[in-house]
């Protein structure tokens, strides 16, 4: 994407003020977005975004400058602007660049660029029509398709050079259903690091149907009661809990600053012995996967909790340096060339256990079964979290009974995972976007059925 002589000139300019190392991240992002709402194509947009950022790092400090213009003059000017943020005398130099070609773990069979717009519009329509077909109580349907091909060129003064392309596709349906003044919404949004072939396996009809069926089921729900109870999270649904309650607190920038409840607890039995969780950027074609992270490290799988024992954290280069580690865990990610990397999750997975999913519920005298969790928030310093439950049932004497809505899960991360007392043999993945420091990146969550002995439910009923 960039000429090697331009790269060397840029990195050389970047190191003139005492940086330990410098890096160029250049990106070309071609994207398509289609949104059909209530039978109308409301949006069909194409975008090309190009740009490059130069980062200079000295110990724990970094300076960054970026531009939309990829000429040598412009890159060198950005390098000088970044270098001006570092004070010192030059001591590092640019190593010979070696092009690295990591194995492609996420093969693309049908590149979005090779599929015409009419086909993409037709696919989105199929999801929309399938949702409308679920019944007269369906009042609004939004179906949206998005694909992106993100070419990432990375080079640094340590000699790394890579040029990889990440392709992602997603189809989302959001449905509003109404009955007698009660209005409920349903959502389904599968995505993957795949091309258009994704929709050979995940049919657009299934996406529309699932979203509509969820909205319709919620019409038969009553407001959730509040209070403390046993909570069973269905396969896939508990992923948001793991992501929010554990994952953010195990990002190494928070650990280095001692602003997380998990800081200094490596090796401690924090979670229940049934609980093993990993972050895995190598998950084949996963929504949060890649081959090379956004600062040149190969994708990795990092064990965070090994049978409840705190076993690792997720780092980028700077947070790894702060923790005295020799290398990052390959979790340096950024939203685009306009952002500096942060330690971020990729695919957060809780590994399956030994209980049959039905048996996990059968033991519960009184509790709540959550079928899907919405967005959440966590305060890493305290571990306290809150997030919405999109769909749930009350459990009474081992049976699912009343369908409920509007519940919030309120609790504390370490306490919640210490109270995991059953883990299912099943497993399912969900996809989402995670925000941190104003940057959004795709992440996936995967879990088996999980049971937590006690959690606080905030409800409106």
């Amino acid at each position, binding site marked *: 994407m960039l000429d090697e002589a331009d790269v060397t000139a840029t990195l050389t300019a970047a190191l003139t003020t005492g940086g330990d190392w410098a890096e160029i991240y250049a990106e070309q992002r071609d994207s398509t977005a289609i949104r059909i709402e209530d039978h109308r194509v409301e949006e069909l947009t194409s975008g090309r975004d190009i740009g490059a950022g130069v980062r200079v790092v000295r110990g724990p400090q970094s300076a*960054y400058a970026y531009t939309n213009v990829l000429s040598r003059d412009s890159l060198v000017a950005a390098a000088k602007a970044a270098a001006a943020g570092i004070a010192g005398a030059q001591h590092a130099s640019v190593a010979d660049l070696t092009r690295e070609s990591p194995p492609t773990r996420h093969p693309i069979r049908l590149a979005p660029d090779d599929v015409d717009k009419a086909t993409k519009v037709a696919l989105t329509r199929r999801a929309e029509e399938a949702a409308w077909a679920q019944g007269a109580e369906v009042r609004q349907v939004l179906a949206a398709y998005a694909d992106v091909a993100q070419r990432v060129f990375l080079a640094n003064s340590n000699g790394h050079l890579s040029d990889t392309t990440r392709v992602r596709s997603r189809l989302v349906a959001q449905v*509003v259903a109404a009955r007698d003044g009660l*209005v409920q919404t349903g959502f389904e949004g599968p995505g993957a690091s795949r091309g258009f072939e994704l929709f050979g396996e995940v049919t657009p009809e299934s996406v529309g149907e699932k979203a509509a069926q969820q909205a319709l089921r919620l019409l038969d729900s009553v407001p959730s009661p509040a209070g403390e109870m046993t909570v069973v999270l269905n396969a896939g649904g508990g992923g948001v809990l793991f992501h929010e309650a554990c994952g953010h607190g195990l990002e190494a920038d928070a650990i280095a600053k001692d602003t997380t409840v998990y800081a200094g607890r490596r090796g401690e039995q924090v979670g229940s012995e049934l609980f093993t969780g990993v972050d895995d950027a190598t998950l084949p074609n996963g929504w949060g996967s890649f081959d090379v992270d956004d600062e040149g490290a190969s994708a990795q799988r990092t064990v965070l909790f090994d049978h409840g024992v705190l076993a690792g954290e997720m780092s980028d280069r700077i947070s790894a340096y702060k923790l005295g580690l020799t290398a990052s865990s390959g979790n340096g990610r950024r939203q685009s060339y306009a952002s500096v990397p942060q330690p971020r999750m990729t695919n957060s997975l809780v590994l399956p256990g030994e209980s049959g999913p039905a048996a996990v519920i059968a033991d519960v005298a009184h509790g709540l079964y959550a079928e899907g969790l919405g967005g959440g928030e966590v305060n890493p310093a*305290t571990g306290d979290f809150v997030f919405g439950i999109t769909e749930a049932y009350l459990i009474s004497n081992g049976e699912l009974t009343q369908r409920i809505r509007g519940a919030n899960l309120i609790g504390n991360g370490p306490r919640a995972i210490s109270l995991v007392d059953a883990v299912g043999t099943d497993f399912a993945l969900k996809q989402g976007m995670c925000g941190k420091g104003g940057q959004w990146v795709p992440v996936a969550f995967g879990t088996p059925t999980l049971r937590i002995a006690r959690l606080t439910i905030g*409800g409106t009923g």
Partner: protein
Amino acid sequence: MGELLDLATSALVGAQGGEAVEAYAVHGVATSVAVYGGEVETLTSAETRGVGVRVVVDGRLGFASSSEVTPPGLERALAQARSNAGFGTPDVGNVLPEPAPWEPMPAILVPGLESVPAARKVELALELERATLAADPRVRAVQRATYGDGISRAAVASTTGVSAEYARSDVYAYVSALARAGEETQTGFGLTTGRSVAELDIAAAAAEGAARAARLLGARKPATTTVPVVFDPLVTAQFLGVLASMFSAEAVQKGRSLFAGRLGDQVADAGLSIVDDGRLLDGPAAAPVDDEGVPTRRTVLVEDGVLRRFLHDTETAARDGDGTTSTGNASRAGHTSTPGVGPSNLFLDGTAVPVADILAAADGGLYVQDVSGLHSGVNPVSGEFSVGVTGLWVRGGELAEPVREATVSSTIVEMLRAVAMLGEDRRFFPVGGSLAGATLLLGFMTVGGT
């Protein structure tokens, strides 16, 4: 002035007969400095450009964007937008605005920011960190202290005759303080904003962050009770953010607002008004025109408790018909997106009283300092919500013992009708828009706990 408008105008060159074409161009220069432990953590300097092109042909809309602002890049964007329009659905809302006279707002660009040296910006961030640590002995660390500024320019040109450009400066500094006692940690947020470095009040932001963190130490989960509830200005601003989406005509037309079909209804306490004003100089979002070149203005959405108007852009106004006009509330996330309806500077209006009077009136009540789960916890259609809250009891007109892990559940309309007193401490927060907070006394609400 002029260069960016020239760029936008140049993107219209390839327009064909029967097409309406609009180019929205942006150019931004920004700096941010984050410090930690007395040292610079990250310094970022940025320059971005980009163009978004809308094409309307036979009532169909197509859009494409590019950050390649070269003649070939602009031609490619126009060609793609035209091709995308071919797949669009014809709609009465697919129209570009007609030109209207607009009055520049030179005051939103305070000159001099370009010449502030990076070292001075670093010093401001370090000063904020130091002042926060010094403000309260219980503050043991600062998660991060940040200084940021930017000069943003936007231009809109269209074949329908719109031609507008403006520039604005923004400067801010914020801190997240960490107070500790034993194993317990609490965080507190402090913020100062302005249009120039001279307008920042670093000492006030430091004191705010420190106080908000320290006063939560020792927080306990309360027993469930029904008491008067007071919202902190930041909490009020966050709720206003949720309300903002409900005032959008786009949400109303799509049946996604609980205010749909309720113009003329009493939706709030008779003492309360809700106003959007794009020309309000102390609002962070102040601008002479919106993101499709329509002049901004003051729009009273709720007047003395009665719902009067919704926020419109050109598209929603055309869909409503019957002489409905845009309120100048077209809003884009950047050059990469088509306009949607968004608030400019949104605030609560009414008779404002000293905050001390509110605390005196709320004896035995709960002062809510932070809410969590607001965006996942509010149903935009029914207005039901249940959020986690952190705060302090109010006793004898003062903030007393802290509270954590509590919940507050109600509905948006019940909450608006329960507003009893509005504080005179109005202040804008650039959190997901430009939303003004103020201390707010609500009537009795149930606070969930053990």
